[in-house]
């Protein structure tokens, strides 16, 4: 091949790179399809209306959290506190309902709490100059502690009202309400992410903070908003979960932050920021839970589950890198 000079080389190389996200999404669909095909042969119970809806239902809570996580990861940040926010906001709703507060007000209060906690995360990150990892890690521990102290380690119970119950267990046209919430959220957030200023600025922020600053956008405010959004979404998941489980124990939502990160990563969102896909995240969550479901149906020892999830995460991050190696990359140093 003729030496076309540096620029051409870079360009060819990067051209592949630009196609990668789309290819990756395609790959996710293929993986999902493969799981469905294989499982439908292996288990008669898999490809049933009920089971598939069940998978979606189980996936919906983590999926909702993962949507928020996708926004945060797109800025190059991380939010480890979402599991705890989920717990404490669910607790807030339950506690208020138990005190006979109107359902709408209880939910609004829980959501508001989520926004406030998220904003506090954003404030510690921007104003105290903490790394997002540390700030949200500390918040995760603090909130979990507060929930323990608040409940006194005894789960909140007897708060259920019929209207509240609908959130977690109701169905519309046979589809569970949490699934509907997840779908609606996906559509709304997709517009926010791809078609509105906020999403554009978030992607720019994760891509180059300097670019955003110089364009006259208030970076700190943007960051605070992102974490507040993540808090709000986590709170919504918490409310749904409180309704679904009918009790709020102090461990509620624990470890969800990791599953949410896993879903986003499997979906093709980078930890380094600048790019992300909500559709990928949704697929990531579904794949995660479909595998859990498949192992369940095949009576695989549940202890294998954690191992398999671990390997899936490794695979999801290693595949694009390995693909890059195979295609032969040009060092641009």
């Amino acid at each position, binding site marked *: 091949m003729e030496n076309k000079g540096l620029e051409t080389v870079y360009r060819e190389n990067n051209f592949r790179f630009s196609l990668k996200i789309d290819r990756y999404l395609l790959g996710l669909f293929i993986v999902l399809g493969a799981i469905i095909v294989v499982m439908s042969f292996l288990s008669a119970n898999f490809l049933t209306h009920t089971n598939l809806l069940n998978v979606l239902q189980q996936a919906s809570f983590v999926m909702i959290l993962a949507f928020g996580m996708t926004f945060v990861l797109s800025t190059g940040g*991380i939010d480890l506190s979402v599991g705890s926010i989920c717990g404490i906001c669910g607790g807030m709703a339950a506690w208020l309902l138990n005190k006979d507060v109107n359902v709408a007000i209880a939910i609004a209060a829980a959501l508001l709490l989520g926004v406030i906690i998220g904003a506090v995360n954003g404030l*510690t990150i921007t104003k*105290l*100059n*903490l*790394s997002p*990892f*540390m*700030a949200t*890690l*500390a*918040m*995760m*521990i*603090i909130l*979990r*502690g*507060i929930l*323990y*102290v608040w409940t*006194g*380690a005894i789960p909140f119970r007897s708060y259920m009202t019929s209207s509240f119950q609908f959130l977690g267990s109701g169905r519309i046209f046979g589809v569970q309400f949490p699934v509907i919430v997840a779908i609606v959220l996906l559509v709304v957030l997709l517009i926010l992410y791809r078609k509105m200023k906020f999403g554009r600025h978030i992607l720019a922020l994760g891509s180059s903070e300097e670019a955003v600053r110089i364009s006259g956008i208030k970076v700190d405010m943007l960051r605070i908003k992102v974490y507040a959004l993540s808090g709000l979404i986590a709170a919504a998941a918490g409310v749904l979960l409180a309704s679904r489980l009918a009790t709020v124990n102090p461990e509620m939502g624990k470890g969800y932050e*990791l599953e949410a*990160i896993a879903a986003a*990563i499997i979906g093709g969102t980078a*930890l*380094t920021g600048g790019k992300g896909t909500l559709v990928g995240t949704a697929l990531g969550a579904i794949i995660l839970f479909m595998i859990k479901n498949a192992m369940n149906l095949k009576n695989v*020892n549940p*202890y*294998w*589950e*954690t*191992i*398999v*999830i*671990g*390997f899936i*995460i*490794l695979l999801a*991050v*290693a595949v694009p*890198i*390995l693909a890059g190696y195979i295609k032969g990359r040009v060092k641009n140093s």
Partner: protein
Amino acid sequence: MITNPKITIHSKKTANSKNPFLILLTREGVGVSLILILMFLFLAVSAPNFLTVGNLSNLLVQSLFVMLVAFGTMFVLSTGGIDLSVGSVLGLAGGVTGWLMMNGLNMWIAILAGLFVGALIGAINGLIITKLGVSAFLVTFAMLYIARGVLYLLTKDEPIRNFVTPEFAFLAQGKVLGIPMPVLITLVIFLLLYFIFKSTSYGRLIIAAGSNTEAARLSGVSTDRIKISVYALSGLLAAVAGILLTSRLTSVQPSMGSEYELEAIAAAVIGGTSLFGGKASVVGVAIGALILGLVSNGLDLLSVNQFYRLIITGLIIITAVAIERYLAAKS
């Protein structure tokens, strides 16, 4: 001779006219020691049972497990990485040792096997991180799941217990010259690590690789090898903690050591380790772990709900990191 006025003045300032108080605070471990002493004094005054030999030695032993893990975390953090798998490695290493002994293997071989498992998992972490260029967070996060899962499998048929021989129990429950064995073991490890970090080329190269990997590599430092070894060391130290904990608890629960990674990160950052690499202090981390132990002990003695510990720990982390960031921005 033309020099940049800004730079000369700046360097003079940092050399001479800095607030002596700030300099003192930034000295290794001084800031955290102050916090430790203040907490110590507070508890000595307000909790009558605090200043007893029994309580203090108990407090010390309780902090050691986190301390050991935190040393490894410190090494990893100072190369600019992170290791979330240590809690699971701790559990698995303890589990492997216990399981082997339960199946009649010699205690020392079982211990060696446990240590080997820890170092091996760490080395695998390091290999994937350096050779594939995957973020440390994700790799060790995946390893957290995998190692925990393997421990679950080890314990699935029957719980790991009834394996403890008197010699094995001695490791964590015995005393030599009135000093609990775990304290002695940790002290030896502490001194060794302190020496390694301060006075050997390995310690220097860790800091170099952490503060700027590419520059260190261009200066002939085998940065990949250093990083792999650091993760292996982190796994090894977690395994030591796991085996000691197994000896102390005389059984292995499948959840043993879960969330130790958080405590270890907390102890490390309280001890002044920077999450951005290139800065760490063995003394600081030891004190950080003691502070975490003191919080828990103090709540017990003051009969405050243990759940407050989480809240206090979180607040201490934020404060410690904020102070570290503030001081870093200052200089």
